């Protein structure tokens, strides 16, 4: 027996579960970021809580990082296996006749998200870890807002963020509903669920774009 760990369906289910986990995290991240649009104080309060709570720092954060790693490593594995399943390509392949661009290019939207995560870690996560755990600065619950807003002075960075959110939207436009199919969800609610996932895939990245542009134009 190949067993469940060696099965292609199990890999897809792991992909779906990790993707859904990231979708939930993304919503939380959005809500916290959005507070920065209307209140520096609220944003500071939430950020300080997230940045100092032991459970979040040392349990949920590692789970999140592992979840991301699991998701993109599995994404590469699936891509490699799926490509090997057709060693000689068609000379002519009319994919747009029967499937969406989003669904056929998950690996490319994913790679852009991965590159974005690199930038995002460099921008926020690494400075944060250095600040807190390496240089051990005294606790300052009011630094988050202006540190964040300052990042969006650069038009290049703001542009890269916006572009990444567009690709994130395309990734989720297919991926969010696809994950339910992978887990075997197909019933009378599937259609409504599809509508919800599409709304999410458009609105949440759009919200992130709004936040980035809001701070950019507030800076100039």
């Amino acid at each position, binding site marked *: *027996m*190949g067993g*469940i760990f*060696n*099965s*292609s*369906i*199990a*890999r*897809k*289910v792991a992909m779906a579960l990790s993707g859904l986990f990231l979708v939930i995290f993304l919503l939380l991240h959005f809500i916290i970021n959005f507070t920065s649009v209307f209140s520096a104080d609220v944003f500071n309060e939430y950020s300080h809580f997230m940045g100092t709570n032991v459970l979040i720092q040392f349990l949920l954060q590692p789970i999140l990082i592992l979840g991301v790693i699991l998701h993109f490593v599995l994404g590469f594995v*699936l891509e490699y*296996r*799926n*490509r*090997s*399943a*057709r*060693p*000689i*390509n*068609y*000379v*002519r*392949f*009319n*994919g747009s*006749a*029967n*499937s*969406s661009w989003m*669904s*056929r290019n*998950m690996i490319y939207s994913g790679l852009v998200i991965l590159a974005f995560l690199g930038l995002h870690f460099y921008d926020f996560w690494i400075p944060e870890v250095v600040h807190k755990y390496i240089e051990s600065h005294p606790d300052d619950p009011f630094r988050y807002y202006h540190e964040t807003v300052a990042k969006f002075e650069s038009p290049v960075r703001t542009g890269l963020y916006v572009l990444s959110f567009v690709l994130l939207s395309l990734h989720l436009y*297919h991926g969010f509903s*696809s994950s339910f*199919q*992978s*887990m*075997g*969800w*197909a019933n009378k609610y599937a259609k409504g669920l599809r509508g919800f996932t599409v709304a999410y895939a458009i609105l949440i990245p759009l919200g992130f774009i709004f936040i980035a542009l809001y701070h950019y134009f507030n800076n100039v």
Partner: protein
Amino acid sequence: MNLTLKIWRQKNATTKGKLQTYPISDVSPDMSFLEMLDVLNEELIEKGEEPVVFDHDCREGICGTCSLQINGEPHGPDRAITTCQLHMRMFKDGDTITIEPFRAAAFPVIKDLMVNRDSFERIQQAGGYVSVNTSGNTQDANSIPVQKNNADDAFDAATCIGCGACVAACKNASAMLFTAAKVSQFALLPQGKVEATRRVLAMVEQMDKEGFGNCTNTGACEIECPKGISLDNIARMNREYLSASMK
């Protein structure tokens, strides 16, 4: 109609093939695609050239033998049909038509446009059956009550003709739709429930072993399937597989 055909020619499984161009004239729009190829082959034979090898049998859309990737789609541009049911009126005078074999590691080319689909047979043999004692005192199937919607879904799944268009259309060369149809047609019926756990595990294992890709849920298979087999079958197989794995 006058057409330009670009056809994949390949001597055998081990040599490299290539697209070769053949002009063809006076094609009737009422011909089927395979009849058009018959005409081409007659011309080739008259000229002393090798005819193009392609699969076909029933020529009425029920056996699943005819294949062909036509202009980048299995069974060509029309929907819910096989290649033998594709008519030349779907094309325009002056068109160039590219004809390639179905491509998948698990469907090796035998010659020209003919591929070996034995991998499907092996998936089927791994569990696509019910064990029934055929000694003569078999119970009449109609005496076992089946819920109407299950009977309908099982029937729909059972209309899969094993043509392989789902694999050919899929960017991953995945056989999930075929395997899911074969799993579903039994899983939905009381006779099939007995061996359901073993069946789905064995068939998926064989599917993986044959080197098919898995699902990105692009939905290309459902659209290209001549029998309109639904993606819901794949979701059902995923459910069946997960619950079978927990047993």
